[in-house]
């Protein structure tokens, strides 16, 4: 049987196993996935109270650069000021309610509404109103400036919180900066930016990536690259993670494999290793890749010194409540942002971002164009296509009168943990954070 060797200590990302909290065994009511009333509660008590990732700093590098992003019924405008500070505003002009910016991203010296040219500066202050004297009630600039939204930055990302009294971003992120800081996301460049309309609740998508129980069923090829059994799960306050060994094979396949699987061999070749020359057992390939990366980090162009050996191969997979999924690797990261539909609990927006570490001496690649497509219109590669194929059917099944709720296994307990956090918001247990 394969025995995964794990690092026990780490000077960077803590690798140790957390004690397991008591989460119970109750069924998770399906109403949380299909009910408009619950969706409204989520909006009032959770989405408007939590820190949400808005954009990447590199998307707004210069003064006047802006992006728009949507959460629920709100459109937010994130803009970098002359002072270099990114700020978030509700994307609405206080004259007649037009959206100040319609496009996904752009650059503007000032933020001018396209309807009657009310003009705001980059700090959101109303600075110009055509025919201002015609407003007999006056145009008090302090009341009519863009409504600001609490904004913070960490890891090269810009975050916002619709709660003006929210706790500081770093307090909210909790263990995340300590755990993920060693990856230096700020040194990673966005190489893909796709949004897909999915026919399921946003949590259905979150759940799909918070368990590896499905790997043996829908990703059979990954059994030849991942150990889906020896997965360490750690549940923190709001957030959680699992650590999935890569470039090994699943104990579900039984005894030692005779030859290095093609997926692992391809990974070795891509690194500059010769899989033909590898003489060890297949279960030792993961370790060989770790050693190779450690010994050749200069040639590979990445400083791995803050990462432990497991991080050189494995997926340190984090879930940042409420809606960020991070497949984190030493050289790359695949992030999913799950956003609710404006009105329909049976729909969501699935944002997929892929990041690659900019190697030493390499130029940062230009930002990829944003694509927004319907489910099925664009392949996301084999694994994500496999992940997505069931989701609309899960949602339809969740709407069945025969289905009561989610019957969760121990290995799926990140789902239960997410619901614990969600319900704490719904029940107001986090109210004192504000």
């Amino acid at each position, binding site marked *: 049987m394969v025995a995964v060797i794990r690092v026990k200590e780490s000077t960077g990302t803590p690798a140790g196993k957390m004690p397991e909290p008591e989460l119970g065994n109750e069924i998770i009511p399906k109403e949380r996935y299909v009910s408009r009333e619950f969706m409204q509660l989520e909006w009032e008590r959770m989405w408007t109270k939590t820190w949400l990732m808005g954009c990447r700093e590199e998307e707004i590098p210069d003064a006047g650069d802006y992006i728009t992003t949507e959460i629920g019924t709100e459109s937010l405008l994130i803009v970098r000021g002359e002072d270099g500070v990114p700020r978030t505003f509700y994307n609405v002009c206080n004259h007649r309610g037009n959206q100040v910016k319609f496009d996904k991203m752009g650059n503007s010296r000032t933020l001018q509404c396209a309807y009657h040219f009310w003009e705001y500066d980059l700090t959101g202050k109303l600075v110009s109103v055509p025919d201002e004297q015609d407003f007999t009630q006056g145009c008090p600039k302090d009341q009519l400036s863009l409504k600001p939204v609490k904004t913070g930055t960490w890891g090269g990302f810009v975050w916002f919180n619709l709660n003006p009294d929210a706790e500081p971003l770093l307090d909210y992120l909790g263990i995340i900066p300590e755990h993920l800081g060693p990856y230096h996301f700020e040194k990673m460049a966005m*190489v893909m930016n796709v949004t897909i309309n999915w026919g399921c609740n946003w949590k259905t998508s979150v759940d799909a990536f918070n368990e590896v129980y499905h790997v043996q069923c829908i990703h*059979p090829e990954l059994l030849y690259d991942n150990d889906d059994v020896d997965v360490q799960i750690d549940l923190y306050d709001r957030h959680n993670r699992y650590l999935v060994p890569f470039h090994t094979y699943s104990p579900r396949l039984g005894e030692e494999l005779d030859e290095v699987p093609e*997926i692992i061999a391809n990974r070795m070749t891509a690194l500059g290793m010769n899989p033909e020359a590898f003489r060890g057992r297949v279960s030792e390939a993961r370790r060989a890749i770790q050693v190779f990366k450690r010994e050749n980090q200069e040639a590979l162009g990445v400083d791995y010194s803050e990462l432990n050996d497991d991080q050189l191969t494995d997926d340190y997979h984090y879930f940042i409540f409420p809606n960020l999924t991070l497949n984190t690797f030493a050289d*790359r990261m695949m992030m999913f942002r799950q956003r609710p539909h404006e009105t329909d609990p049976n729909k969501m927006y699935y944002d997929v971002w892929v990041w690659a570490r900019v190697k030493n001496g390499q130029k940062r690649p230009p930002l990829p164009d944003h694509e927004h497509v319907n489910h099925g219109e664009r392949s*996301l590669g084999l*694994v994500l296509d496999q992940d997505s194929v069931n989701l609309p059917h899960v949602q339809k099944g969740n709407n069945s009168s025969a289905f009561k709720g989610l019957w969760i296994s121990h290995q799926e307990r990140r789902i239960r943990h997410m619901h614990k956090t969600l319900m704490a918001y719904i029940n107001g247990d986090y109210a004192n954070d504000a």
Partner: protein
Amino acid sequence: MTDQTADIPFRFVSKTTDLEPGKSRCYPLEGRNVLVIHMPHGGFKAIENLCSHEKKSMEGARIRAGKIVCPHHGANFDLETGKAMSAPAVLPITVYPVKVEGEDVLVQLIEPKKKPGNPFAIPGVGGYF
């Protein structure tokens, strides 16, 4: 059909009388495993005998409404195009062009479809993932 495909000769694989309508049988042919299917309403189809999900044999699979149903996990594939029509499969299977000459079933062994070498690779993202 490309010119390259047109150059591939049709090979004898089975007799039409070998199979009852609705039945399938696997024949080894030039290093391939060719699953010959006698369609329930007549006519013959041939596929590479590998489900694209777990690479298992589909010999003896049921044929329903022009689709083959993998006997292992129920993946459906369109027998005209090879397209996966239901989970757990998402990749297509290889459908070999078929000709019937007299009582002979002939197949053209076009290049079988392959799984990606890196299952995480995303079209348009280069080798980044």
